[in-house]
């Protein structure tokens, strides 16, 4: 069975996952000064007017240096929860109507790890949104 090592992190109210291979190291924001920053938070906010981003989440606790081609780029991680090996058994489909509501920077499914829902970040889409 195919398995993927995932890095789990919590950004604001949301638990997220990304392929561990895509992150070469986890840094303090200070260490990543001057590098391009990919920040998923603007795309994860509830619709305007529902709830503001809490102050404790405005400054990310950690960023991840991305292992991708091009200039050095970091991904805002927030709180790193750890790494987990996931298989298709951990993956749940989202009903189509929920996929339509979900931001495009998330894959159309989620993981269920320790009975908690973890959203899967689509780094390609986030990068394209940053570049274009």
């Amino acid at each position: 069975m195919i398995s993927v090592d995932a890095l789990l992190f919590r950004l604001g109210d949301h638990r997220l996952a990304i392929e561990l291979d895509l992150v070469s190291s986890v840094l303090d924001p200070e260490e990543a000064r001057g590098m391009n920053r990919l920040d998923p938070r603007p795309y994860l906010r509830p619709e305007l007017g529902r709830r503001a981003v809490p102050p404790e989440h405005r400054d990310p606790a950690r960023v991840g240096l991305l292992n991708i081609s091009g200039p050095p780029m970091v991904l805002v991680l927030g709180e790193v929860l750890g790494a987990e090996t996931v298989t298709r058994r951990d993956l749940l489909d989202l009903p189509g109507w929920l996929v339509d509501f979900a931001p495009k920077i998330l894959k159309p499914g989620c993981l269920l790890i320790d009975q908690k829902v973890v959203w899967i970040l689509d780094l390609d889409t986030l990068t394209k949104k940053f570049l274009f």
Partner: protein
Amino acid sequence: MADDTHQSSEKPGFDDIFSDIAEDTSFAWDDEELDTSQAEQLRQVVCFRIGADIFAIPADSVREILGDLETTDLPGAPPHVEGIAVIRRQVVGLLSLRRFLGIDQAQADEADSGAPSQGGASGRILMVESAHFTVGLKVDEVLGLDEWAESLLNKEGLPSNLHAKTQHYARGVREQDDTFCVYLDLESLLDDAAVR
């Protein structure tokens, strides 16, 4: 020696009770064989409360009724999408009818913090199925099953003091204990609430 005809003695026996029941018109079992073409068609509904408002939806659309579930916010979703819950490894979206129909939040809070007869704050989730969606509807209290005559499903008879959005999805109303129970067009409501 036992008397086979002891039922004929003055003391009543079980046969007397059965005879009594058979003669009682309130136990006229044959009533069910009345001409159904003349009887009014009935529709089974599930009634529930949100705040002080009472609603009904078709019973055959309700798959199950659940207690409070662990809910996860869906990023970017509008306020009436409460989030998702995982039920037997199936992801289900949860809708807040309170928010979607614009039911007064202050009134709902008052009901939630009120007497136990109001159902408490934890609420229930009605898992409903329509042609296109399986959705959890968050409600304050499930009041139970009821049967409505088809004649009640008449948009003409709707009271004018319903919220505008409730009015839009209402297909009938029944007066009940000095309040109104509004029958909702679930298909139409879900088509609108679950489409971006």
